[in-house]
């Protein structure tokens, strides 16, 4: 059983939901990320989504775009992100780590090289925003052969046929993008998400993590009640951006926000 599948099974036993933070690797500099990952685990997160910076992040809003630009200014790359996960694994063999990014850095490295290197680094899942299952046949087969879960996105406008497609191609969990738009935008509509989740559940048994629009402990709690996991990204990265010259404060505020979310989700 993969770390991700194991994690969701373990949470399900106690009726808890996964708290999944997203940060961009190398933002605002490569030294910040590793201690931040450990601090997030200490704050009670279950899974870490690590953003692989890309020069053209088409599906991201301004907050994550700027995080990508800061990381790239420090020459962060897919290879360096994999090295970072390897470092993380030296002291944490429990927490699943999912890489999230765009397909071109993987294309440049080569799918097979990437799958090998990701397995070597002990990466648990890979979510590639602009690689839908329609184009991912080769990639999915390679990832699965290397014991890595391919994670796919679902959107508010996904029809049954697409959900079934994600169910067949994906493993670990599916990531439901709760609103039409880019990351960090708008407010989510609880009733809409609830209706959509019913449709999704009817087509897949995979755990569903919900992201886009989770800003604070309150929204995290609401979303946790609807899905199996809660992804929070832009709200964390905003704190890094606001305290670039005082990263101790940035880390502290992220830890506080995650701890508050954890508490709200478990209460």
């Amino acid at each position, binding site marked *: 059983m993969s770390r991700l599948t194991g994690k969701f099974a373990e949470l399900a036993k106690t009726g808890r939901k996964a708290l999944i933070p997203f940060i961009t690797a190398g933002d605002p500099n490569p030294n910040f990320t590793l201690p931040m990952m450990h601090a997030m685990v200490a704050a009670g997160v279950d899974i870490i989504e690590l953003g692989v910076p890309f020069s053209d992040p088409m599906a991201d809003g301004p907050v994550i775009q700027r995080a990508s*630009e800061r990381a*790239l200014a420090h020459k962060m*790359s897919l290879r360096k992100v994999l090295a970072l996960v390897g470092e993380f694994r030296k002291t944490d063999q429990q927490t699943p780590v999912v890489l999230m990014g765009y397909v071109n850095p*993987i294309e440049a490295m080569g799918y097979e090289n990437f799958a090998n290197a990701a397995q070597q680094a002990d990466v648990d899942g890979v979510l590639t925003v602009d690689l839908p299952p329609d184009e991912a046949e080769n990639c999915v087969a390679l990832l699965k052969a290397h014991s890595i879960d391919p994670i796919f*996105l679902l959107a508010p406008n996904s*029809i049954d046929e697409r959900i079934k497609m994600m169910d067949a191609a994906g493993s670990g969990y599916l990531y439901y993008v709760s609103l*039409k738009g880019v990351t960090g935008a708008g407010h989510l509509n609880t009733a809409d998400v609830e209706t959509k989740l019913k449709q999704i559940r009817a087509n897949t048994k995979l755990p569903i993590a919900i992201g886009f629009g989770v800003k604070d402990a309150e929204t995290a709690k609401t979303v946790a009640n609807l899905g199996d996991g809660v992804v929070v990204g832009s709200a964390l990265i905003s704190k890094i951006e606001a305290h670039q010259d005082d990263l101790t404060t940035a880390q502290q505020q992220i830890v506080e926000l995650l701890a508050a979310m954890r508490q709200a989700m478990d209460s």
Partner: protein
Amino acid sequence: MTEKYNMPDTRGHCGPYGGIFVAETLMPPIQELNAAYQRYMVDPEFIAELDADLKYYVGRPSPLYHAERWSRELGGAQIYLKREDLNHTGAHKINNTIGQALLAKRMGKTRIIAETGAGQHGVATATIAARLGLECVIYMGAVDVVRQSLNVYRMKLLGATVVAVESGSKTLKDALNEALRDWVTNVDNTFYIIGTVAGPHPYPAMVRDFQAIIGREAKQQCIEQAGRLPDALVACVGGGSNAIGLFYPFIDDASVAMYGVEAAGDGVETGRHSAPLCAGRPGVLHGNRTYLMEDDDGEIIETHSISAGLDYPGVGPEHAWLKDTGRAQYVNITDNEALEGFYALTRMEGIIPALESSHAMAYTMKLAPTMSKDKIIIVNLSGRGDKDMQTMAQREGIML
């Protein structure tokens, strides 16, 4: 060639190129668009409306003009110019925007968005949006907003909102990113008119089909005027819409050579260029797999060209396929060579070409003398140079 050319396949692939590489939210609107495109491209009423617009609003057919003096001066092949510069709004771009806007109208979309580099596609989109009474938002890199201020003013006059994009390199690729973000947010009422043969399927095929009127007319006109097919075609390639528009109807005519001219900027060897087919490698950007300008890590690198319209790190996936199969050849022309082409056509024929098209002119100056006088080259004069007056005057140290 025994088998008829029939790229792309139903999933938008030209061999390993093309495809649909987008975030899941964009899948439903792309499928909706593809269904509409398949339906209306064979719908006689749609085709009749499009043809009428191309005739009475755009002014088609555009002439095929025998540049006799220039041909004589160069001493080789006879040069024929396909005069897309005479279209309404001054470039080939309008052929496609009219087609997509009519499609948008049939799909019940009330809001049009587009990206633009040199501003020609933005102007063509704002133009048709004005005519159809549709809301129009144009995304343009902040750098391009400055270097193409005349076109920015034209778009605003036409009632469009022009958004200066400040992210990334602030040029065409970033405008495309921003337009995709808008589309993903407003998919219900918005139609995204992509200006070149890029983006996810069906865009590259659809834009090609709307631009193929260039090649269809040119073929017929060449037969009428010269009694036979041309020997070579020349067109500049940024994203590659004017080139594929000219090439496509000739692909099965094996005797017709095709030359796509990329922008070499300061020179391909300097790394400061926009020539992915000549000096890039395959990757995935903006919804399709094609040749890209990227670094070893797969990050897209900044491009350079004197012409904003060629300043793009990717290229239409069908060009990638035509390159690999050898059906078309891709060459490059530096900024300085393009300027020579610009001046040559201006002074020799009294036609001021756009800086983009000047790349095709410059390559023609190299190609024509290598061919005998009974050979025929058709060059796509894809746009006129009015928009470049500011840039050219500045280079000559003149304040307008």
